[in-house]
């Protein structure tokens, strides 16, 4: 039977709140509930407790006079090494039934990340390979906790570094979806002639994938070391191992895409399908883990000063597919008073005079879609195109000039 303790924090000083709350939390036994009353919105505490998997937090009252939090330490099912071995055995053949998969998800849902980590470590000591654990157990654990992770995700606004990284993820995911579609089309053709316009599409996708390397560089050089300073090292290590795998495959895909038609089509097809399918699947999973685990851990543990340092260092490295607003010098051009015949020339002259990394923002009295196609024809890969406003009377578009590598 559930036991509830009540803690009234209203009217207490900061020190008094601190000295009552945390011992009460530590003393909460499995199956017990702590109901805490506040006279302010305890949002930071909610975020902090969500990072502690042993607690389940919900709000029973949301102000404006009183906020009530319900903090439960649920009973955990006791998961054993034998359970995990059983799951791995089932998965080994590669044809795990949906029922068995569902049962495995239920087992893993009831175990917190720390306990799972300890059990996995013991299995590795007993000879189970870390690859097997990473590929099988982690995959099904992620399935089991997917919804809870997304529901508890903390989102931050621009120009916070995590906002930028997550926006970049959206652009990369779009590239991966296009890559997956391309792989499906390539499966259907048997010659370069049949491939037709999909070869330039492959080159374009390969370009976007390698361009995103600065995203990984910012993570590895700036964000991950700061997470590791808080003694959280294993998750970042796994992410870095992923990056190495992706780098090799991105390079191989880029090479194949630019091999012309020198390669035998059958070899070309096999390589593109293999590399493309791997990247589309694994990079997407990796992005999910970063958005919902790594970045969330960072948001919980890094101090405001550390975030200021992360932002400064990220700005120094530079951005790839998404540049935070405060880092993008913008020239504005209002085209509305100008005769239409003067507009295109002025736009191109102004845009070409921009330094890489900056942008031209145009305001027009109609959708400048034809201009987009002219850019696509003349400056493919050198520009970005983002609508700030789309009608009904005026259109505003930000045309970025992408930054090449400089030395």
């Amino acid at each position, binding site marked *: 039977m559930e036991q509830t303790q009540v803690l009234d924090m209203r009217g207490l000083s900061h020190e008094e709140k601190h000295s009552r709350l945390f011992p009460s939390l530590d003393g909460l036994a499995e199956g017990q509930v702590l109901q805490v009353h506040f006279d302010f919105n305890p949002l930071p505490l909610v975020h902090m407790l969500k990072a502690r998997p042993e607690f389940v937090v919900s709000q029973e009252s949301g102000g404006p006079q009183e906020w009530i939090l319900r903090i439960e330490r649920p009973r955990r099912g006791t998961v054993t090494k034998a359970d995990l071995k059983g799951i791995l055995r089932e998965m080994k053949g590669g044809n795990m039934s949906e029922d068995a998969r569902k049962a495995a998800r239920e087992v893993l849902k009831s175990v917190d990340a720390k306990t799972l980590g300890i059990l996995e470590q013991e299995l590795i000591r007993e000879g189970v390979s870390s690859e097997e654990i990473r590929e099988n157990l982690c995959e099904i654990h992620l399935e089991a906790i997917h919804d809870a992770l997304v529901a508890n995700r903390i989102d931050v606004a621009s120009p916070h570094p995590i906002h930028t990284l997550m926006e970049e993820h959206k652009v990369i995911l779009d590239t991966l979806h296009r890559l997956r579609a391309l792989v499906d089309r390539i499966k259907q053709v048997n010659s370069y002639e049949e491939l037709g316009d999909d070869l330039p599409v492959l080159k374009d996708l390969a370009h976007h994938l390698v361009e995103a390397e600065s995203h990984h560089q910012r993570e590895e050089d700036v964000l991950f070391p700061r997470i590791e300073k808080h003694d959280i090292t294993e998750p970042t290590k796994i992410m870095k191992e992923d990056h190495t795998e992706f780098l090799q495959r991105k390079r191989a895909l880029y090479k194949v895409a630019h091999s012309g038609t020198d390669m035998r089509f059958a070899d070309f097809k096999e390589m593109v399908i293999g590399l493309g399918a791997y990247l589309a699947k694994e990079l997407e999973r990796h992005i999910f883990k970063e958005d919902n685990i790594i970045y969330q851990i960072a948001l919980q543990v890094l101090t405001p000063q550390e975030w200021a340092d992360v932002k400064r260092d990220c700005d120094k490295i530079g951005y790839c597919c998404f540049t935070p607003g405060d880092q993008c010098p913008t020239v504005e051009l209002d085209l509305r008073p100008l005769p239409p015949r003067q507009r295109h020339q002025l736009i191109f002259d102004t845009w*070409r005079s921009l330094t890489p990394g900056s942008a031209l923002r145009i305001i027009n009295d109609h959708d400048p879609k034809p201009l987009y196609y002219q850019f696509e024809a003349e400056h493919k890969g050198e520009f970005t195109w983002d609508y700030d406003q789309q009608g009904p009377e005026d259109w505003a578009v930000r045309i970025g000039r992408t930054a090449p590598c400089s030395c």
Partner: protein
Amino acid sequence: MGPEFQQVTSNRKKAERSDSNAEDRGPFRESLSSIEPIRMHEPLAVLLGATNDEREIINYTFTDVVKMSGHACPTVATAFVACKHALRNLYPEGPAERGSIKVSVHGEPDEGIHGVMSQVFSYVTGACPETGFKGLYGLHKRKDLLRFVPTEGATGLRFDFSRTDTKDSCRVTINPSSLPALPPSGARRLDELMEKNVWQGATKEERIEFRDLWMQRVIAIAAEERDRPLWLHIEKK
């Protein structure tokens, strides 16, 4: 001696001659290896017997700097030229004395191109950061001769070179936007070729074209010192 043996010997000699020629020529482009070196006197090398003679002059060539940096680029080229002229300013009479020069870099070590430039200065002058040689009996110390100091609000690239013996000092200011540049079409082409070359998607022709384009700026800066007064300013402090 049978004819087969003679043939093998003759081929080996030919190969040796060819290797020796390759060594004479060196691995670097003539336009880089013919750049006037920076002449230094290195008292520590003399003291510990590495040189033949007490007044032996050691040449620090541009290709030495390329070996140290692992590449040649406009930044490495600019650093080499800036260092050469700063040392001429401090030692108008003759070779500069390695290990007796302090270098202050205005800005943070990881800011922009400070890291690459300071490594070139360190290599040529012997001025080291905190990892440098601690000295013998308080002499020949290289440690902390290279420092990063606050920018004091100034923008651009600024470095101070000073002699530890006379305290003479000069300030080097570099204006990167005035460095020799490729024409816009060449710069655009270089950007296009950069990604293909880095990610190994370039054809043989594109690899050659990229290298030649890249080297055009390096040669204009390091060998020709083209428009130097526009981008390099040195004043006595």
